């Protein structure tokens, strides 16, 4: 069953979802479309914020906050930093050949259509979405899960970050030339 937003009888949640979704998609598109990297970055930040909005809508407050901190805060800053560092501006990008654009559009349409078609074709989800009423996404719960059940992945994520760190260092460290 496809929920087509019925704007006449739309609940607030539905309207918010639609607006957020629109913002998300638009800014995501603009991120890609914008010629100036800095603009792209800013659109992306907006996009991330709108996604955080979705999280909030789904009542995942903690995640929303983490999301904003990590993406908008850390990752985007890293991007911006690099853009600034390299002093990029819009002129730098060479003209895209038509075939590239065509290919990109074809891919976009294909992947979009194929996946959506599958979901539409498939057996719709029937019935009410259950709500246990239990708290499953508060910081407390998340913390428990993360540090009990998911302790090993959590620790292992540290290895991931360690590797990334060593890697970044390895790639940028100047060598002492030993003769």
């Amino acid at each position: 069953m496809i929920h087509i937003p019925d704007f006449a009888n739309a609940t607030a949640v539905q309207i918010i979802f639609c607006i957020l979704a629109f913002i998300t998609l638009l800014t995501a598109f603009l991120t890609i479309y914008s010629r100036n990297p800095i603009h792209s970055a800013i659109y992306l930040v907006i996009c991330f914020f709108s996604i955080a909005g979705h999280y909030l809508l789904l009542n995942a407050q903690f995640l929303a906050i983490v999301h904003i901190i990590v993406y908008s805060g850390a990752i985007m800053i890293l991007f911006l930093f690099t853009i600034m560092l390299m002093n990029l501006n819009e002129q730098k990008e060479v003209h895209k050949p038509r075939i590239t654009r065509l290919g990109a559009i074809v891919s976009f349409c294909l992947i979009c259509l194929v996946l959506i078609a599958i979901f539409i074709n498939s057996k719709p989800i029937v019935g009410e979405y259950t709500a246990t009423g239990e708290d499953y996404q508060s910081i407390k719960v998340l913390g428990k899960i993360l540090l009990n059940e998911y302790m090993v992945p959590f620790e292992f994520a540290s290895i991931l970050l360690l590797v990334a760190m060593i890697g970044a260092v390895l790639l940028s460290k100047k060598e002492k030339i030993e003769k």
Partner: protein
Amino acid sequence: MNTNLALLLLLAPFLGFLINVFFGKSLGKTVSGIIGTLAVSVSFAVTLYFFSQISASKQAIQIQLFDWIQISNFKVDFGFLLDQLSVLWLLFVTGIGSLIHLYSIRYMHDDEKVHSFFAYLNLFVFFMITLVIGSNLLVMFIGWEGVGLCSYLLIGFWYKNQDFNDAAKKAFIMNRIGDLGLLVGIFIVGMLFNTLDFTALKTIFLTGGIEDKVTMISVAAFALFIGACGKSAQIPLYTWLPDAMAGPTPVSALIHAATMVTAGIFMITRMNFLFDITPDVQAIIAVVGAVTALFAATIGLVQNDIKKVLAYSTVSQLGLMFLALGLGAYEVAVFHVITHAFFKACLFLGSGSVIHALGGEQDMRNMGGLKKAMPITFVTMLIASLAISGVPLFSGFFSKDEILLVAFHHNIPLWVIGSVASIMTAFYMFRLMFLTFFKEFRGTVEQKHHLHESPSLITIPLIVLAIFATVGGLISLPGNSWLNEYLTPILPKLANAEHHLGNTEYMLMAIAVIGGIVGIGLAYAKYIKQNSVPSTDAAITGFSKVLYNKYYIDEIYDAIIVKPINVLSVFFRDKVETSLSALVFGFGKVTNEISYQGKKLQTGSIGLYLFAFVIGLCAIVSYLFLAQ
């Protein structure tokens, strides 16, 4: 005892061969010649022993040595069969063989490779004996091919001349065509009767019960006949024999006149029981024989090379023998084989003597008037010529006459052909005699200076052979034939054959004699009276040119068989092989080309790679979830 003697008979020449091969060079020319001659003489002596034994006992001697080849339904022993037929053959093989060995000691004295000459001759005798005394078809086949090998070696004895080598090769290959026929015949015989042993086969045939197999037997007989054609130089496989004259003259005398070429007749006589029940094949044999006789005789009319004349004469005479075989008169054929062996050997040796005297000259146009210089040679050759021409009282008269007689009784046209061939024989033989020995010498002055009678080692064999050529007819006089009696165990029909002389017979005899004399007369008229000498090669025209060029048979064979095969070979080599090869390489090339084109796809562009990724993803997903 018999086994040991038979082995001595067989191995004496082989021993001679080995000694000559390994020590011949150090022994010196004469010694190696003597060893060769002795070896064959030993065989001759043993043969005489066996002859006397068999004449007395009339029992064939069977000797089994060991198992040789094993076939699923029968096995082939290596064994000997000494019966009337084989001993008879042995007699003249080893007898004439000894004489020719003796002759060769002197004749080949100036050659540097005398020892290998004697080695080959001994080897030849060894194989010939194997051929003759083999107790089954396959042992005979050893000898059969072995004499072919020796013939190859001896024709190509002067191997520095590639023309001679070509002749040798040709002889071998032509023989092999026949051999294939013989093999096929052997296969069929083996298949039908589960044995190749002569005695066993004969028993099977005599007991009967083979009527349902006659068709296959005919095929076998025909195949065997092809084998005989190859060895005995019948149409269409005769062309090798004239070329075989490239070998030293004693070789021509021994192998290509007296012994090897008669192997076909031997084989057919051996298998007479088989041929007797296949009249169709017999008819073919008779026709082929007659045609060959005439055909070769016509060619012989105009040849100028003394040995070539004799060669075609041999082919012609062999044709007559086949005619007799085809008519079922095996004993007559055998009789002619024997007389022919004497006079033809004599003729060849005589011509050898002439050639020797002239320092290698073989063209009769450059001879003449040798009568005075070489009286013994002249007389012996004259006797032999009279014999071959069928002049009464000489051996040839009896044997040839019997053939014509048989032909007349069976089929008049064949008799006519045979008679014409005989007249021609008389003509060309005396043409040879007149051109060689009469009138003035036409050679160079230097040759004339050297003219001389050959030494006694050469003339003695001539004289011996001439004597036999004269009296050889005695073994089978009309009406009182020792030979027929002797051969009766081999040819059971002879027992009840009546041999009386009626008017018809006398008349035919007269016709034959007249024919012979006419032939001689014609030759006399042309070469003595008119004093004509054959013109030079270029001046020959008309039909005689066709004859002189042997009906262009060699050229025709060359054009329709040899050339096409060679062209085919070149075509296969240059075209088919390369294209097959290219086909295989083609797979590699195509994949390589695909690879080369494929490399262009790998452009290095991330966009393309990701595009492929996405397309692949979509394809898989849509195949799995949308296409169902």
